[in-house]
């Protein structure tokens, strides 16, 4: 599977009123390519922390579905937060990991996820579900009903290295991304 195809499949499967946080690097850029909106938080720095943001958001808004689009490099940088998520156990948190076994933004250097199965770590920590898919058909099966069962749940999608040619950067200002996201999450005015 290709990263962008998976990102697109996830984007179209998001439940109504879901709040999504995407990790820095190519994943935020590709997620942005599928659409911009106030219910999407595109993280452009602070590598590793998308899962932490998702955890805080899920505890603050138990009434909303919270989705994290993460990468293997990001998860490995903040592996302890898998334990925090499992311990807190937010039933509304759905954690996607797009695993290409490489740091693509910095030149495709290898991560260690070829030797350390992240979904097994999540399962051991205590995620209610953590499954790995390697092919389109498995992804389709896994996505069907994925949000119907409680989280915290992980769906790890193994993809080949490589990203959408010419994918743009997120141009909207971080300040505005945060303000409009908070308004969308709370039904209030932007601060």
């Amino acid at each position: 599977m290709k990263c962008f195809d998976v990102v697109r499949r996830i984007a179209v499967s998001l439940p109504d009123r879901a709040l999504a946080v995407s990790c820095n690097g190519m994943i935020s850029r590709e997620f942005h390519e599928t659409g911009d909106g106030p219910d999407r938080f595109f993280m452009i720095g602070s590598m590793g922390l998308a899962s932490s943001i998702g955890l805080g958001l899920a505890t603050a808004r138990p009434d909303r579905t919270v989705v994290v689009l993460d990468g293997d490099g990001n998860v490995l940088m903040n592996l302890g937060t898998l334990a925090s998520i499992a311990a807190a156990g937010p039933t509304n948190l759905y954690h996607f990991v797009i695993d290409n076994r490489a740091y693509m933004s910095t030149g495709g250097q290898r991560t260690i996820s070829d030797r350390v199965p992240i979904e097994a770590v999540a399962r051991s920590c205590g995620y209610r579900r953590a499954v790995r898919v390697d092919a389109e058909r498995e992804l389709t099966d896994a996505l069907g009903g994925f949000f119907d069962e409680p989280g915290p749940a992980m769906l790890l999608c193994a993809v080949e290295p490589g990203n959408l040619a010419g994918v743009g950067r997120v141009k909207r200002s971080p300040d505005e991304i945060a303000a409009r996201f908070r308004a969308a999450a709370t039904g209030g005015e932007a601060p």
Partner: protein
Amino acid sequence: MTEEASTSGLFLDSLEAAGYDWFGGVPCSILKHVIRRLESEPRYDWLAAVREDAAIGSAVGAWLGGRKPAVLMQNSGFTVCYNALSALSLLYRVPALLVVSWRGDGPDAPEHIHTGATTETVFGTLGIPHLVLAPDRFDEQIREMTSVVDRRRIPAALLVRKGTLT
């Protein structure tokens, strides 16, 4: 001193009165009385983070979800947060009150000396306003830092010396 009259209880009351309604962080002995209360009272919904920068990340998520976060940590862990604070909190303008204990403020275990001596410099370098918590003025100081947090949409900090919060 009774449990009710302890400074950590009054400190938490002042935080709540200032609107803080989300609490997370990583323990420090200087903050143990406050954290014990945060852990034991379900209404605080204390998030025990495993690293301080992860606590900052979750505080950002909580603010995005409409909450007003306070994050507690030791200064050793505060220095772990440099990138989270600069490339997430300050970049996206997400406010939080940081309650940072000050190990190495004077004689202390060797691992705290250099961090303790440079902690205030790091706040200055980051551009995060801070006050050293004064036992007799913390209600006023919390309000002062909260006005910074609210007006500028950035983190601000209270630096806590040993023995301040009982």
